[in-house]
């Protein structure tokens, strides 16, 4: 099988067509990865492959890979916690769906921007990797992103119309999600404020905005819960970042882990992990009413934290290299723990809404 490559400069007229995947009806242009940080910007080498040669997975696997539905937990759990305080099932579903669509749109846009900037050619762990595998083009992902944004607007606008007082809060949150996490020019993901952005958007801003949109009420308990969830997710996301520390250091990205170095990053992350493991159940207890389901959810939450937490903590401290396979294992462990916690909490909140 003959291998064909094409190298194009960014300022060449066909460059964007190749990059976005719509330069040909029968062929795909996959940018080749590079181990050299300095070469990723101006010129891109593409491997040209026939679309018929790409082995695509099943439709379900493709959808799951493209959308990365597991990431929805970051907004669904706090949102469901707020929605569990309303008896309006339709409103609850409407808000949850709108915000989910917004997050999907932002994630897809992120993947496209990483691809356009060339970041995914250097960081082979970024995004869903569906473009690199030839399963979808950047153009298709971009189109899908706009579709989800449109759907989010269709669902979200009536809600905002009925609760004008929260318009600025909710709109600000949504806009910040799109701009901060998926901006081409100033990608906050790797700025010193990236953690603060993640914390605010997944915790206090989302929960408080949602609570105000539904019943115009705030409470200290709700605030504490939102802070605990935001903190939990922010720390969980840092485990993924630890995998990329060497790359970020080579690229001199302004991330706190690059500033403090490998050894201290591990230590600080371990300490933060212990703190949020205590904070999360405390936040849950502070807000939610004492009913049977709540006790059940709390028990399962504690079991999950105790079952996974200590092992993650010790394995994290034992990691002895930024390229160690242990980082991946620890990351998988924390993702499993996070998924289980999200499932338990989501199940509890949904049962509160329904029953």
């Amino acid at each position: 099988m003959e291998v064909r490559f094409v190298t194009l400069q960014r300022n060449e007229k066909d460059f964007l067509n190749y990059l976005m995947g719509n330069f040909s009806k029968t062929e795909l242009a996959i940018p080749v990865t590079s181990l050299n940080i300095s070469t990723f910007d101006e010129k891109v080498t593409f491997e040209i492959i026939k679309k018929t040669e790409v082995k695509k997975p099943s439709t379900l696997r493709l959808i799951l890979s493209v959308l990365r539905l597991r990431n929805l937990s970051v907004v669904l759990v706090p949102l469901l916690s707020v929605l569990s305080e309303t008896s309006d099932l339709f409103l609850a579903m409407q808000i949850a769906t709108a915000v989910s669509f917004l997050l999907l749109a932002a994630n897809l846009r992120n993947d496209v921007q990483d691809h356009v900037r060339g970041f995914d050619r250097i960081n082979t762990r970024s995004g869903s990797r569906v473009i690199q595998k030839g399963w979808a083009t950047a153009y298709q992902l971009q189109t899908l992103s706009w579709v989800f944004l449109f759907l989010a607007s269709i669902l979200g606008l009536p809600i905002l119309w009925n609760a004008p007082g929260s318009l600025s809060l909710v709109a600000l949150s949504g806009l910040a999600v799109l701009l901060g996490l998926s901006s081409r020019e100033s990608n906050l993901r790797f700025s010193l404020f990236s953690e603060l952005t993640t914390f605010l958007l997944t915790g206090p801003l989302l929960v408080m905005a949602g609570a105000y949109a539904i019943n115009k009420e705030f409470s200290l308990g709700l605030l504490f819960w939102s802070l605990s969830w935001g903190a939990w997710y922010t720390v969980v996301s840092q485990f993924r970042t630890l995998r990329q520390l060497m790359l970020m250091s080579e690229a001199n990205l302004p991330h706190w882990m690059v500033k403090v170095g490998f050894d201290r990053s591990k230590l600080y992350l371990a300490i933060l992990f212990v703190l949020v493991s205590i904070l999360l159940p405390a936040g849950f207890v502070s807000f939610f009413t004492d009913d049977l389901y709540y006790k059940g959810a709390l028990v399962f939450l504690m079991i999950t934290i105790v079952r996974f937490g200590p092992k993650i903590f010790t394995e994290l401290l034992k990691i002895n290299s930024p390229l160690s396979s242990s980082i991946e294992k620890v990351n998988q462990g924390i993702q499993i723990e996070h998924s289980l916690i999200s499932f338990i909490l989501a199940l509890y909140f949904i049962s509160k809404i329904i029953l």
Partner: protein
Amino acid sequence: MDIKIYDSKDFPSYLPKLNSLYDDLFSGGKGFRAKLIKMFAENLELSAKVELLLAQTIEFIHNASLLHDDLIDRSHLRRGKTTAWVKYTPEYAVLAGDYLLARVMVNLSSHGNIKLVSYTAEVISDLLEGEWIQDSLVRDFDINLNQLDRVHNLKTASLFKWCIRAPFIAKENYSEELHKILEEAGTLLGMLFQRSDDLLDFDIRNDEGKALLGDLKSGYLNSFAVFLFEGIDAKLKAEAILSQSLGELKSKVGEAHFELRAKQFDEINAHLIARYHHHLESLKMILSEKEKGILKRMSQLPEILYFRRKPSEKA
């Protein structure tokens, strides 16, 4: 080797055992990197003085890393001879390596091309980072090929990148476009060389009779080992890693599986070779007519480095 890399007159005679150590070190070895320099020097019309400077620089850096490597790995043999740290002392081996790196800086700064000095310093830094990271991965048997490639890009490819970029820098050709292509081409050459070296450990194209399973016995999975064990049952992998001979390893993973993976490994590296040739095509667009003469010889390098045969021979 045509270029005389080591001359005792260049080193102080009052330091006991130093010249004897260097005599042992430089009398073995194929001097391949110096030959690469010679190849570029001819086509770029570098003066004999500059050619010697570049050849010495790269061989000094390479051999300094060998002195340190052998001590880190506690190897007793290098090129069929007793390693320096065993024959002399570990202290002398470390200092001898450091001294070679110091001489590199002295020689380059005397030459006066500050960009060459700066780039060489970066490469030495990359080499040491690669060594450090590699050492941190000993006994990590779940590492993947992508992670290893990052290590090899620092440890091995950095010197190949230097070999093909330094002659242009010495000629004061600092074109960014040229050097980015050379950097990518150098990375591919380095990866191919390293992967070929890793195959020798499994007696694949091992005409030089290198000792087998040396990396595995040192607690290190090389690139072919990682590829070979991919997808294998964890228990079987753990047993295979403890193999004391190649025959034992093959019987554990299965002879057919071993041969299949070797073939597939060659296929993925053929892909890298195709990418390398594509970069040579890009170079054709930006080199001068005279400089283009280097491309034919560069096109033969994958054959030499990966398949370990002269370009005129075919399998």
